Every structure is written in structure tokens, then in C-alpha cells.
């Protein structure tokens, strides 16, 4: 059965946008509720030559879910937990792609999972799960209304990825609906490339041969284009493919026990160089930190202003007056003694870097931790609010957000580059995010279209510089439409051509996620 195809009218216009705040166009939309409906809809739309843009929670920041004409396949109604299994003491849970991260987290932490659709094996695993210590799915991309399908499609990360890695590390298997409605079922550990040649067989018996690109991926955190490596697992090609190869209809996730202890700590520094030194020393000294997050001077200024001016943010923590920038870290471990040792080691290092232990925020309860998460989430939210305000006067403006990572040794160099270039151009900006992975989001807040153009030019230049440093142009948000131009800087002409060949073997007419990863013209 095909799901209802509705024309896009005013009442559905929200489905032309995502959190990147850019708007696209489309003729029709559907909201399938089962894999069968996805298959029928894809088969019919594809055979009519309609472009198909897949949507999850539309929280993406790279406009990957913003349609580029044709049909919108919105998966928000496919949000069931399909089953569980336990193998060698590890739990796995299979979900539909539209499952919202916060709902999954709630189900896991309360151990309340609707089991109506579970088979006998799933029920047995569920009973064992209920009797076991709390289990978690660690990826945590700040915006918890993201869906598992979206997170898998753009290999999302987040604060805790410093320790737990990106979504990729936690995806154990998946089902991908192909352009002809057939399905590809992949399980980690079952299908590997032979060197750079990958041969896949669909459920319907069709063979797909893929020549993987010859370039090597950067060793940093990375979500830039198709994953490639010698003898790689086929699952890894689909993860991070940004909705350009097919439609994920089910995803199996691996879980791990939640640590007994999770303590958050925010510390403040008088200068960015001291903060960078602190990061360098702590990540060498301590092995049980789950995250290292940064708030630069611009971010703290913005948050101070928000606290004063916006009721919704009045409850933000009061930032010490002499603080220039801040680092948040989270200690994950199994016992309190270890946690105290780590906390005090961090304290020693921060003093060495000129910070004051009596001006810190320690969160040892879930309630206190939530306050620090609220503070963390308030940063991108405040940037978006500022842009929305400015957009009213200059409708063409959007946020300019970078998502680049570099190797450890280039952290200080990249920080200096950011500041020098932005200050020389006289731009307003905030830097925040995953400093433990040398991966900061630089958000430029343009005041007018000149600022906007200047910012875009700077990002282009950074893509080149960061590639030279051995970094990645998109570390976690996916490339989408907004960063497609950077990919070529990173992989060169030949690299892009090789990726386009992969896309063709899945999507001969180039209709899935048109504009994502590739410039549509280039692709044709």
C-alpha cells in the first residue's frame, strides 16, 4: 500500500524548512507509517522521475532535509521500537527511523518500552533488559528532537562523542529502501569490501557493485561525504550518506550500560589560550572524560545578555564577571573514588592554567546536570534567536555555522586562525562546541548581507586551510546542501567523481536528496 500523497500547500509549508533556517520547494509530501508504504511510495515517485527528499526531525543544520523540488518523504510517523535482542551480554534495540531521540532515551531510562509489536525473542531480551543495570544509547546531538534515521543519515555526534564516538559506532544494522522499492539489509560484521570493491545483494536478489573512492578519510572526527576505507564494513557506507542513497526504514542500535557516575563540571578561564592549554593537558591526563565542550568569549557575552533580556533564559547560571571563556567536561565512571580523583585532577590542571576552583560549577546530581545541559543548549538557541530577529529586517540573512575539525596538534593554530580572520573582517561571532575533538562550531552572526558574504568567503578559505591541517570540513552535521561546495575542496575533483559513481549505482537518476553532497549540476 502506498501512503497518501498530498500536495504541499500553505498549511504544510513548515516541511520546506529545517533548523538551518533555509527554505526549499516541493510539490508533494507523504507520511508513510510502514516500510511497505515507503517502498510503494518510493517506487512510484522514483519511476515518475520525481526527486525524493527524506525527512526525519528536520533538526539538521546543513539543509539536508530541505527539499529541492519533487516529493518529501517525511518519516515522523514511523516512530516505533520494533524489537530487542541480547547477545554476549550486550543489548541491541531496533527502531523505526522516525523514532525521536528523546523518546528513545526516555524509554531506556524508565525501562518502559511499548512491547505490543515484540516477538518472543524480543520479549525475552526485554525481560533481561528490565532486570539489568540501566542501558544507554550514548550519541547526544544536543537537540533531542532529532530522529534516529536522521542521526544515522548524517552520522550525528554531540558532546559525549569525545568518549563514545559518533552515531556510526552504535549502529549495528539497518534496512535501506532502494530506488526500485527493493530493500538492502546490512548487518555489521557480515559484508565487507574486498579492498575498495564492495558487492551488495538486495533482499530481492539484485546485485549492486560499488567502487569506493581511493582517498583516505581524515583521522579527525568526520561526517564529510561517503565513508571509505580498505575492506570496510558495508554498513559504514550507508551511515553518513545524507539521504542520497535510499531511505532507511529500520535501524538496529547497540546499547551500553549507563555509567554509575556522571559528574559535570564547568570551569572558566581568562583567555582562550589558557582554555586550550587546559584542554590539551586534561585530555592527556584523564581517561574517563565523556566530553570537553567550549564556550568562547562571544558565547558567554551572548548568554549573559540572554539571561538579562529573555525571560526564558532568566534561570541560566550566573557567569563569573571576570570570565572570558569556559570549558565544560563530564566525568563518567563506575565509582565515587575514581570520580573524586578525576575531579581533583581537573581542578589541579585548571589552577595550573590560571583558573579559580572556587569559580566553577560542579553537577553531581541529575538535576544539577540538567542545569548545565540547559546552559549548553542555550548557546545555539541564542544564536538562532539573534538571527531570527535580524532576519526580520534583512530577510536574506541566515546563520553561518562551521563544523570543521582538526587533529590535536592543530587546535591552537586553528583557534588563532578563526579569531584573526573574523576580527580582520569585523564580524560578530561565537565559537562553541566540541573542543576535546578540536571541533568547534564557529557561528557568524551577520548584521547585513555584506557580513553574510564576507562570512561565506571566510568559510571557503577555512575549508582549504583545514584540509591542509589534515582536518574535516564537516565533522558531525553532515554536508547537506550548505556545505556541498566544501567537499570538493577536501577531496578534489576526482574524489567527488568517485563519490558520484557510488551514488549512481544506488540512485541512477540522481533523485534522492538532490543537492546534498553534490551540486546537482555537477552530478548531471
Amino acid at each position, binding site marked *: 500500500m502506498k501512503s497518501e500523497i498530498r500536495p504541499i500547500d500553505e498549511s504544510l509549508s513548515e516541511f520546506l524548512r529545517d533548523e538551518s533556517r533555509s527554505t526549499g520547494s516541493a510539490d508533494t509530501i507523504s507520511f508513510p507509517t510502514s516500510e511497505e508504504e515507503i517502498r510503494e511510495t518510493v517506487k512510484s515517485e522514483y519511476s515518475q522521475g520525481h526527486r525524493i527528499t527524506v525527512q526525519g526531525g528536520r533538526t539538521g543544520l546543513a539543509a539536508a532535509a530541505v527539499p529541492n523540488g519533487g516529493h518529501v518523504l517525511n518519516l515522523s510517523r514511523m516512530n516505533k521500537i520494533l524489537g530487542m535482542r541480547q547477545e554476549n551480554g550486550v543489548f541491541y534495540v531496533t527502531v523505526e527511523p522516525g523514532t525521536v531521540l528523546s523518546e528513545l532515551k526516555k524509554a531506556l531510562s524508565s525501562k518502559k518500552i511499548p512491547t505490543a509489536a515484540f516477538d518472543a525473542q524480543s520479549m525475552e531480551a526485554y525481560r533481561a533488559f528490565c532486570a539489568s543495570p540501566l542501558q544507554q544509547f550514548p550519541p547526544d546531538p544536543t537537540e533531542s528532537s532529532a530522529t534516529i534515521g536522521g542521526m544515522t543519515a548524517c552520522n550525528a555526534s554531540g558532546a559525549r562523542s569525545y568518549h563514545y564516538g559518533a552515531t556510526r559506532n552504535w549502529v549495528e544494522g539497518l534496512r535501506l529502501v532502494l530506488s526500485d522499492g527493493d530493500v538492502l539489509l546490512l548487518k555489521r560484521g557480515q559484508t565487507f569490501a574486498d579492498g575498495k570493491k564492495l558487492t551488495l545483494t538486495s533482499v530481492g536478489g539484485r546485485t549492486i557493485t560499488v567502487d569506493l573512492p581511493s582517498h583516505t578519510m581524515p583521522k579527525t572526527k568526520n561526517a564529510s561525504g561517503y565513508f571509505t576505507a580498505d575492506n570496510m564494513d558495508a554498513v559504514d557506507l550507508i551511515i553518513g550518506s545524507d539521504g542520497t542513497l535510499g531511505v532507511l526504514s529500520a535501524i538496529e542500535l547497540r546499547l551500553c550500560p549507563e555509567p554509575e557516575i556522571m559528574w559535570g563540571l564547568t570551569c572558566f578561564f581568562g583567555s582562550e589560550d589558557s582554555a586550550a592549554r587546559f584542554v590539551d593537558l586534561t585530555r592527556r591526563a584523564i581517561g574517563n572524560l565523556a566530553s570537553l565542550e567550549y564556550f568562547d568569549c562571544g558565547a558567554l557575552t551572548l548568554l549573559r545578555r540572554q539571561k538579562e533580556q529573555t525571560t526564558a533564559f532568566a534561570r541560566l547560571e550566573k557567569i563569573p564577571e571576570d570570565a572570558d571563556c569556559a570549558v565544560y567536561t563530564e566525568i563518567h565512571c563506575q565509582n565515587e573514588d575514581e570520580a573524586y580523583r578525576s575531579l581533583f585532577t581537573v*581542578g589541579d590542571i585548571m589552577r595550573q592554567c590560571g583558573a579559580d576552583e*572556587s569559580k566553577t560549577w560542579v553537577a*553531581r546530581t541529575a538535576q544539577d546536570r540538567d542545569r548545565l545541559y540547559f546552559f549548553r543548549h542555550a548557546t545555539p538557541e541564542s544564536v538562532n534567536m539573534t538571527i531570527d530577529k535580524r532576519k526580520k529586517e534583512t530577510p536574506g540573512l541566515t546563520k553561518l555555522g562551521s563544523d570543521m575539525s582538526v587533529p590535536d596538534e592543530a587546535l591552537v593554530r586553528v583557534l588563532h586562525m578563526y579569531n584573526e580572520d573574523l576580527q580582520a573582517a569585523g564580524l560578530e561571532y561565537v565559537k562553541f562546541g566540541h573542543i576535546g575533538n578540536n571541533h568547534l562550531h564557529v557561528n557568524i552572526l551577520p548584521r547585513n548581507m555584506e557580513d553574510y558574504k564576507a562570512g561565506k568567503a571566510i568559510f571557503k578559505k577555512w575549508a582549504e586551510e583545514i584540509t591542509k591541517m589534515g582536518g574535516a570540513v564537516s565533522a558531525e552535521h553532515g554536508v547537506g546542501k550548505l556545505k556541498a561546495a566544501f567537499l570538493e575542496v577536501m577531496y578534489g575533483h576526482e574524489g567527488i567523481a568517485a563519490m558520484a559513481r557510488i551514488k549512481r549505482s544506488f540512485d541512477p537518476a540522481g533523485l534522492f536528496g538532490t543537492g546534498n553532497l553534490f551540486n546537482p549540476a555537477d552530478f548531471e
Partner: protein
Amino acid sequence: MKFIVCVKQVPGSNEVRLDPETHAIIRDAHAAVINPLDYVALDCAVKLKRRNGGEIIALSMGIPATERLLRDACARGADRAMLLTDRAFAGSDTLATSYALSLGIEKEGSCDLILCGKNAIDGDTAQIGPELAATLGYNLITDVTEVIDIDKKFITAVKTTDSGSETVKAALPAVITLLNGREMPALPTVSGVRYSLEAPVDKYTAAELGADTSRTGFAGSPTSVVKTFVSENTRECRDMGLDAAAAAAFLIDEIRKAGGAQ
């Protein structure tokens, strides 16, 4: 000045679990936290001490594991703590609790200001502060949102009332109970946590306090709990499949049927 802040251990999650046999609240030491409004009281004391100097003592009656939470109070600015812990205190209602706490306070000798959260999120009675004031014969200001001034003799504070707020001046010693103010209470600091591991936490039994055991625990509690249960949420969500006008008409009808506004 000497400030005493009364703190209570409450469950850390919103979901209160009851023992199916005894109907008592299951207190899991690990998930327990200090009652949120007690943090507000502690934070108020920390600010007053910063202005006027003095000493802050966190006081609790509870099981031995409550020591962990008293050390947390020390991480947040208390100088030291007192824990009243004894089987004789088990089963105390608010009257028996305030009696025990008053003995702890008397053990301290003099004291200028006692600060309590207005109510605890588990029992929700808001009785401890007023009962303490009555037992000790101190002045009382409830529902305080801000302390404007305190000196050796008087405290001036803003309290919330049904119709707005009042500014009240009371002679010390006094008891105040606190509501959330504009600011969140400050979080602990690393130096605070270091201090808390060494901070003095003195423990007292009923005998050491010279308690009259007919006034403590079950014996001293006139309140009897007849039944406790977790209320069931029977609301349900129905998709009526109506357009805006029909939905509005339907709602008006439902409100009328329920005896709502005409």
C-alpha cells in the same frame, strides 16, 4: 552570626516509589537529593554570610546515609553539619521531626537565623518551619523570596502573600521559610567539593540530644497515615478528526456538560 539551614533528603526522581507492603516511600540512598527548596535556603544563608560574616550549619534528621547529602551542603557553602540519626527517630511526622530538630538547634546553643525550604517535595506539608518556630519560641516569616537586610537584632524580608508581597521586619532569633527567588541557587564548586570531604559532620543520637522518647518517632507522631497510593492518571488523548470550527463547538459542548462557564 550563626545560620542553621534545615535540609531534608528526598527522592531524586519525580517518580515516587512506594513499598507495596508497607506503603512507605522507598528511599534509595544513591538517587536521593536534598529537597530543592532547601538548596534555596542554603543559598540564601551563603549570601547572608558573604554580606555579614558568620557560620553556616546544615542540620538534618535522617538515616546515616544522609551524611552524603550534608557533605553536599558543605560543598555548596555550609561550614559544617549536624546529623540527628537514631532508630528512635524512625516514623516521625512533622511534629516529632520539628521536636528533634529543635533539640539539635539547642545543642548548638545560640543561633541567629534558622532557614528552611518552605516545603519538601515528598511530604509537601510546609509545617516544619512554623513548628520549629513555635517549639523554640522564635519569630517566623514564611514564604520568603528575598532577604533585604539582616543585622544583629533584626531581619527584613519580602514574603509572598495571596494578594502580592509584603515586606516584614522581625526580631532575631527567627525562623524563615524560603520560596524560589529570581536566581537559581549556586552550584557547588571544586574547592567546595574538596572542603566537603573534610568538613565536620557531627552525629547525635536521641540520647545524646536528651530527647524525651515519647515525643520522637512513631510514639511522638499524632499523625497516622491511613493509606498512601500513587494516583492513577486516567486522562486519555482522543483524535476527534474534526476541523477547527467543529472542534471548537465540540469543546464548548464538553465544557458545558462538565458544568463549566455558560
